[in-house]
């Protein structure tokens, strides 16, 4: 019947030829569907050339299919599977754990010990200048020098404590970005 119309046959075979980038089964389903459309529209009383004109040129239709099916699925790819997530966590651990370990230990130790030593030096300097240094403390430094050195050490210590915290925050942010929480993956 209508499907023997030469224009329709030509349109469908051209379409089949133009959908080169689709998988064969997908391509066959698309052609069947467009054939179905032409049949339905014909049954509704529309003339063949009007139906084909409304479908647009074979090239434009094929391009529309390839745009939707080849470009868009990648844009909203499905949520990353579980194994991927663990792989990323493992990778992050392998690459990041040693530097993190070293940085946190070194910076953290410097931070804590410098701060405490600095405060002790300042206290000792003040006590020394007041002549109230306990007998068991030996202070070779001038009191004012002890105070200045103590303040400098404290500042250095606080700076590296701050550095440790800033670094840890950075690591947390990095982990969150690489391995998004489950809820954001789904949304």
């Amino acid at each position, binding site marked *: 019947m209508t499907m023997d119309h030469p224009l329709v046959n030509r349109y469908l075979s051209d379409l089949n030829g133009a959908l080169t980038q689709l998988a064969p089964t997908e391509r066959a389903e698309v052609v*069947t569907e467009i054939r179905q459309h032409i*049949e339905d529209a014909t049954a509704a009383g529309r003339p063949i050339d009007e139906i084909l004109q*409304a479908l647009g040129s074979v090239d*434009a239709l094929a391009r529309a299919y390839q745009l939707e099916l080849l470009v868009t699925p990648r844009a*909203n790819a*499905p949520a990353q599977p579980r194994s991927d997530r663990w792989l990323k966590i493992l990778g992050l651990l392998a690459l990041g754990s040693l530097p993190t370990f070293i940085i946190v230990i070194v910076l953290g130790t410097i931070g804590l010990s410098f701060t405490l030593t600095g405060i002790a030096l300042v206290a000792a300097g003040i006590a020394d200048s007041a002549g109230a240094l306990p007998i068991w403390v030996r202070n070779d430094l001038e009191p004012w020098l002890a105070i200045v050195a103590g303040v400098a050490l404290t500042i250095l210590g606080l700076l590296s404590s701050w550095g440790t915290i800033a670094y840890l925050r950075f690591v947390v942010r990095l982990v969150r970005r690489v391995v998004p929480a489950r809820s954001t993956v789904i949304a």
Partner: protein
Amino acid sequence: MGIHATSDWSSQLKRGVLELCILQLLREEPSYGYEIVTTLDTLGPLAAGENTVYPLLRRLKADGVLETFLRESPNGPARQYYRLTPDGRKRLTALTKEWQSMANAVTECLDNPRKGDSK
């Protein structure tokens, strides 16, 4: 620019909304290509050419929100029908919510764009 810019704007707008409308059309019962195209045609500004709707249907199927099945038709060979998958229902709910909050915000913006300032 004028008219051209306007039609470009509305076709961009339609692109996103069309997906929501197709999901909604299939909410109660399955349908097939020709019926979907002609239903959209009756909705004025939502009318979209066959060369937009058919590729979009395939993409929604590839995304897993629609699935196809064959159903006998009284006159002629079996037809390919589309229906929502469980993921499709979730997506329809999410998009409906999204659309409603967007529509409310746009209405508010058009009515009273400087609401924040006047307070």
